[in-house]
């Protein structure tokens, strides 16, 4: 029996009701350190114990990897620095995008000793290792770098993440049309500000968010405080979708 639509109900109230149905239990969260990002997420921060997906643009693998590393650093710090991170990738990608590099992780604020790296021979084993890690529990996060993921695989990872209470992060070259992930992010590098050249800085677009609305920001990563911050010297473009800017520019 479905309740009859009530004419007096506003769109916003309906959204709230749908959100309550879609989000079964309040997830524990970890904030981004940037208030505008946290406010845009229905949970008030990045929900834990579920799957997130991040994609770069072709030829720009660094942005998605950097965003994932930054998120993982925040997640790892939120466990009082006790829990390790499981990072799974295909071993033969080392000539394509390079090997994870301990001094580089330290530059980002993530202590290399908390990272457990799995270099699997094929994508199937990457996904297997991710699922094992998610179900085992006791980890700060599980990251997987894969070429593409179909809906049933991402759904499976989402269920494993919920079962083990571990946050999962998929780094893919391109976001798939459908996914079981709770939030999905599109990243691209942008040039550093004059004051802080060559600083990690990305255009971050939240393309899908269960129970939330898409949004976009320009964020930079502070590796000393482990915070994201809306990039200095750039006006807040969170209300301006990216394609409109592209049209304006081109």
């Amino acid at each position, binding site marked *: 029996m479905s309740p009859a639509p009530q004419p007096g109900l506003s769109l916003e109230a309906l959204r709230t009701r749908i959100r309550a149905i879609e989000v079964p239990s309040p997830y524990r969260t970890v904030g981004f350190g940037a208030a505008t990002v946290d406010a845009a997420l229905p949970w008030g921060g990045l929900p834990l114990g579920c799957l997130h997906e991040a994609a770069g643009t072709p*030829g*720009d*693998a*660094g*942005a998605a*990897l*950097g*965003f994932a*590393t*930054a998120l993982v650093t925040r997640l790892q710090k939120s466990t009082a620095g*006790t*829990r*390790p991170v*499981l990072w799974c990738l295909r*071993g033969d990608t*080392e*000539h394509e*995008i*390079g*090997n*994870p*590099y*301990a*001094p*580089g*992780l*330290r*530059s*980002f604020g993530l202590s*290399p*000793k908390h*990272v*457990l*790296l*799995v*270099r*699997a*021979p094929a994508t199937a*084993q990457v996904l*297997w*290792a991710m699922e*094992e*890690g998610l179900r*085992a*529990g*006791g*980890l700060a996060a599980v990251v997987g770098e894969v070429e593409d993921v179909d809906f049933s695989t991402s759904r499976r990872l989402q269920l494993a993440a919920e079962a083990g209470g571990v946050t999962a992060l998929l780094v893919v070259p391109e976001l798939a049309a459908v996914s079981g992930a709770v939030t999905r992010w599109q990243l*691209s*590098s*942008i*040039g*550093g500000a004059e004051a802080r*050249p*060559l600083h*990690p*800085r*990305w255009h971050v677009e939240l393309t899908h968010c269960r129970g939330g609305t898409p949004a976009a920001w320009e964020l930079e*990563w502070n590796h000393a405080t482990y915070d994201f911050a809306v990039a200095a010297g750039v006006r807040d473009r969170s209300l301006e979708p990216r394609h409109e800017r592209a049209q304006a520019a081109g």
Partner: protein
Amino acid sequence: MSRGTNGRKRRVKPFVTSAASAGGLRIVAVNLHAAEAGVLPGMPLADARALAPGLEVAAADPLSDNEQLARLAAWCGSFSPWTAPEAGGSGPDGAGIWLDASGCAHLFGGEEELLRELIERVQRLGFGVRAAIADTAGAAWAVARFGAAGAEGDSRCVLVPAGETQAALAPLPIAGLRLPGPTIEGLAVLGIRRISDLVTMPRAPLVARFGSIVTERLDRALGVVKEPISPLVPEAPYRERLGLAEPIGTREAIEAVLAHLLTDLCTRLDRDYMGVRRLDFALFRVDGNVAHVRIGTSRPVREPKHLARLFAEHLEGLDLGEGIEVLTLTAQTVEALAADQLEMPGPGLEHALASANVAALVDRLTNRLGADAVVRLTERQSHVPEHAGITVAAARSAPAEPVTPPAGRGERPLRLFPKPFLIEAVAPVPDGPPVLFRWRRVLHRIARAEGPERIAPEWWRTSLAWMTPWEETTRDYYRVEDESGRRFWVYREGLYPLATAPAQDEEGGEPFLPGMTPRWFVHGLFA
């Protein structure tokens, strides 16, 4: 205690193997029926045919005999963790198998039961067998080969009770002391034919005539001198065994047996506050072959469920032949493991659980993907980028030394290529950063650059032969950002010649740079 066995193929007709030797074909090995007809090893084949008219003959094949003996020795591993084949010809002093039966008898309910089961199983494989258990290796060897003729059939076993070694050895021929042929003949000339004759003899003349070998072998057989026959075996090895009345052939049945063995083993480990690091699960097939499944753990473990999951990966696709009749589980390496603290209340609980989970996870990943595939990232004190970050197998303990990055070190990229990529770069100033470069057929125009950070090879490593040439030159590293915001770590290899004006060549064309032209590489990616 040790024991030798001696096996021959069972046939109903007289059967011998022969090999060519000086003076024609000679007998190498005989079966029981041939021996009853009077055929002996070493006899010319023609004589043997005269003694036993229906004689079957095959060419001797010592290589495959040795292989078969080694397989049988491995198969005997279901009785003792230490077995070794002893190659040799046929005849009483021929080939045999050593088993160290120390601490194994309780698994069978006693030494007699162990011997009986051994004989029964070896006979089922189609061998005649003679076996003995004694206090010393030498005595077991002698009794198995020359012991009182049991006379029923071609198989028999002798158990020499502890402390009765001398009495058991006394009536045996001196060949039972594992002496070389000439020594035996020399002793026979002196009228010494039985071991009892030797025991009472004064030793000095024996040593003077035959060297120390006779007295040495005698002392070893009697246990006066220890004979090192096996590597040190722990007093109570952690070993569980299950012999089955009916062979099993399904994975489910094997998993059930494994769970049973693991529970027993872990109960013993728990009692002794030990945990296992390496485990060997041996499946002894009905056809005499052995399959081994071995696992390792990253820390001492004694949880049956954890260990069972590690084995489960490997039981898939195991060749079970016609079935498995004996299964053993041996802890090859054990380490001390304190009593589980999981019952302890307090804030440490979650932490303890977490680390146990993570260790179990590392084991599962390592056992499936290999130790090279599951690694931790570590830093080392080195200026050379590719030496500063390395990986170590996660199953090994974490390196203890804390590493502080060298002072003044610039920012390092998130990803480092195992081998830098050569790029085409344009740098307007010889000592400056590039303004554009082409890599993977994409042109990158540089918007910002930072550097250089000069990294010279570590002087103490410069002349090592294993170094590739690109590790030996000075590099100037730049962090660069292209116009679309992508950030790279590039370097110029080698130094430009000093500012002395580049010599113009005769035609006054391109400036001529002596020495090598600098080359540019991309070495890593920043986020």
